[in-house]
């Protein structure tokens, strides 16, 4: 199973220990993970570490990262990420997020931080655009049976099987299973209600003044492409690109396409004077 191994480094941020990974060299890139956390062997890690100074934390409440009692909302998580970036003395970076992590990255970007040069959001959630309470934009991932859960995130069922080890916990170690459960706790804490969104975020996306690229898996079953386009349209000047043969978990399903999109984005930023 992916997501199930601890990250190698530790940093105390505002009194709480955060686990993270730092690999590679070059421009700094901070990556924020999706609903199920992150592991060193997740396929996009090596792809991104070739060409970037890659920094990947487990968000507080996920993996082995501790949570301060006051960390209760997605916006609090964004502040915790600011704390981590500060404490690592990163002055200039790309901020990249997938799914849940893209929500946190968007929250952070609305605060107009000076240290982010570019923002890449892969299949972001976290905003609500619909007005009718009976319209549902984001799938309720909490009411999916464990056995069916992996398949909602991938276009290719075989990749879902591999990523989640067929959800066969009997063949996993206890520590790996606890990590899976802890990640479920993390997403429950921040996404249970409102269901994977912050009611204030949609109206704040216009504050993002960082160059932004929104990537979208064409077979995303958690949220549809129309939502992705609304998300991108709400961010001034954001580009929107769809990725074929890909579900919600772009970095895991198409790691080399993901890395290549980020490299090209970074290249474009370098060529465009600030």
């Amino acid at each position, binding site marked *: 199973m992916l997501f199930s191994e601890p990250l190698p480094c530790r940093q105390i941020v505002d009194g709480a220990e955060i686990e993270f990974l730092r690999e590679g060299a070059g421009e700094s890139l901070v990556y924020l993970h999706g609903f199920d956390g992150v592991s060193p062997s997740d396929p996009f890690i090596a792809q991104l570490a070739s060409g970037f100074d890659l920094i990947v934390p487990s968000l507080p409440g996920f993996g082995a990262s501790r949570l301060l009692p006051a960390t209760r909302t997605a916006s609090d998580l964004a502040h915790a990420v600011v704390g981590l970036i500060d404490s690592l003395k990163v002055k200039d970076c790309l901020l990249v997020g997938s799914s849940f992590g893209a929500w946190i990255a968007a929250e952070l970007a609305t605060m107009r931080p000076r240290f982010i040069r570019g923002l890449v959001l892969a299949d972001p959630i976290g905003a609500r655009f619909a007005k009718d309470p009976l319209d549902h934009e984001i799938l309720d991932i909490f009411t999916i*049976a464990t056995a069916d859960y992996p398949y909602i995130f991938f276009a290719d069922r075989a990749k879902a099987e591999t990523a989640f080890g067929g959800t066969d916990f009997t063949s996993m170690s206890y520590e790996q299973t606890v990590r*899976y*459960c802890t990640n479920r706790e993390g997403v429950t804490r921040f996404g*249970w209600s409102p269901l994977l969104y912050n009611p204030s975020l949609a109206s704040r996306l216009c504050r993002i003044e960082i160059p932004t690229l929104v990537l979208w898996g064409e077979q995303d079953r958690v949220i549809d492409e129309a939502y992705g386009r609304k998300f991108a349209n709400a961010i001034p000047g954001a580009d929107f690109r769809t990725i074929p043969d890909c579900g919600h978990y772009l970095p895991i399903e198409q790691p080399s396409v993901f890395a290549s999109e980020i490299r090209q984005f970074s290249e474009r930023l370098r060529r465009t004077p600030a």
Partner: protein
Amino acid sequence: MKFWYFTEQQYHPAWDRVTGTIRNTPPSGLIDPDEAADLFDRYYEEFQAFDELGLNIAVNEHHTSYQCMSPTPYLHMAALARITRKARLLSIGTPIAQRPDPVRVAEEIALADMMSRGRTEAGLIKSIPWEYFNSNANPMGLMDRFWEAHDLIVKALTTRDGPFRWDGEYFQYRNVNIIPRPYQDCPPIWMTGQSPSSAKDIAAKGYIAATSQNGTDAVPFFDAYRQSYAASFGRAATDDRLAYICYVALGKTEEVARERAQRVHKWVEFLARQDDRFQHAAGYAPAKDFARLLQANRGGSLFFNYVPPSIDKLREQGIMFWGTPDQVSEQIGSFYQRVGGFGHLLMQMGGVASQSDTIESMQLMAEIVAPRLKEIALNPRARTVAA
């Protein structure tokens, strides 16, 4: 020992109408309004009969479920307050970590207590995982919310020189002052649990701890309570601090009792009709415990692959007491000795048991079994024998 008739006020006609699960997903359109109203007429006739028999009455709370037609127990408590005269009335209980407004809970308790002239007893409970999908309350941090809600409810029930202001971690109020106050100083508080660690927490407060249909697993629960109570209060816990919830069915002959037990058992057969999607809410149990269930291939659930035991097995396990009054007296008496004693027996019926099944069972309990067990005391050697 005190005896309580306990019913979930089930809408059993729906059990054969649902496809699969009985909770969370089957639509309310499966209810025939007249049939449901008739059932309430029946349940209230039974309550009145049991009041006359000298039994106490317990109701509970569930949502979006054909297990129970009582989403708001204090409405029932208020109705019971007016149609009964002697029975003590227990709500077992209110899931206070799921209620956004604990002061409202305190107001409901106080009102029922005043209307019943001090016959109200209040259960404050953690509830079960699938209810978090109905209430939408976040299962993460539920115990912290539970204890803050508890502190606030108790303060609201016991403060006489209010208003007071509450600036808690989870709840904030600028003007708490419940009117009416409860009739009693504070209605007796009950909590439910299945594990020794819950028993310890309940004992530290000195509340009545109820454990449900778990047979001799009640032993570690009651033992943990007694130890924690003694450590907290410097004296032994009396039987009246401990409650056991069981199923019952009685008849003048064993044959009649067996048929009745089988009709109560219909509920046990449907009990586990649980949708996989609502089996577990992360945070309800700690990750390290949930991981153990997943590794045991149990899907993280109480009811995963649950096969309902037969009425004979349930009788053997001390989960259902059924038979003639002699047999049931013996079963409860010996269970009492095996678990080291308890002071309240909550007797659940329901299933597809009829009104006459229910009333005759309770008559035999009240008239024959209860008098025999009222003064039951622990045989000091009983636990040694059991061990």
